[in-house]
């Protein structure tokens, strides 16, 4: 990761996805019930 300030949304997305690649978790299951705001 470089040290430059993240200036715009595109760079932020790239930064996040770079983090994801490092983290190597490309899929994630969420509970179909796991969202507050529905019955």
């Amino acid at each position: 990761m470089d040290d430059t300030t993240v200036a715009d949304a595109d760079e932020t997305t790239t930064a996040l996805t770079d983090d994801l690649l490092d983290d190597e978790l490309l899929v994630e299951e969420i509970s179909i019930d796991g969202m507050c705001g529905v019955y």
Partner: protein
Amino acid sequence: MSATKSHLVEQLKTGLDAPICLTWELTYACNLECVHCLSSSGRRDPRELTTDEAKAVLDELHDLQVFYINIGGGEPMIRRDFFELLEYSISRGIGVKFSTNGAFIDADKARRLAAMDYLDIQISLDGTDAVTNDAVRGEGSYDTAIRAMNHLRDAGFGEFKISVVVTRHNVDQLDEFKALADSFGAQLRVTRLRPSGRGADSWHDLHPTNAQQRQIYEWLLAHGDNVLTGDSFFHLNALGEEPLPGLNMCGAGRVVCLIDPIGDVYACPFVIHDEFKAGSVRDAGGFAHVWKHSELFAELREPQSAGACASCGSYDACQGGCMAAKFFVGIPLDGPDPECVGGHGEAAMLAASAIDRPRPMMDHSKPVRVATPERVPVTIGRR
């Protein structure tokens, strides 16, 4: 929370192009008058969406690729077109879960439901005995629910859900609820009571005490493996090191929302109030336009201010709690949750003026009939 999970949550908080799922209250009509009803249901609203209007909404949801809908009300099975809408939804590739008090599930209906695919059923129950349950849901409602469950089991429906609103009076029955669900091969769901709808009046008597909140948290950690919560207890995460399973985020207006019986779109079913109304499916552009362009939803999809909670070390865990809970007790949205486990909610509630407290705006409660000594029936509105 893992780094990847917080990334995911941050992305979800900015909102998706379409809901993942949503709640759709089909009618304000209901055969019951539960004291905590979030939608203040009882009487049908004459402005209810027609069958054709409802199908048009389903067509839109199909185009948006909404995966499934949670149907409720009132009592959704009261609608004459209930099965027609169910079948239409499924035919359009939208799965259905519906929430019911069970009054209209007889052996015949149970068989009909069992024959349907991509359908889930949730039976509401608030006590493991008639005394506890009926005090909240009305006389005979416990028997009604159990009878419906028996019919579903006899018809071979498969796994249905039993949905419980946790109150001061049923907190000690959590083990029994689990056993009841197990006995039916059903899945238990426990959810948080909010001061919404008629719940605004009963909340102070019904909501769990601080000690009981800890009881709920610890029970969920110890026994909640197969228990659903609708992610409604994330405000309790501040109680300990171990967070409850779930995304621990408010999805209202971001990944979920409510469509009410007259087609109004709200952030979630617990905030049926003008303050949280995003638009109407009857407006030009329909539901899709509301989801994508509503000012309210745009605001909710912005980063939220921690406000008064910014200096609290627990904010990351509890996210400031539930906006519906705050709103209806008169606490500002960037203030503490009324049930803040750190105790900050109590002071905030005292500061909230009774005059400023929002009143539920859509009240479809049935009028209370009182016979005077002269035996002249007088109709009094519930509020």
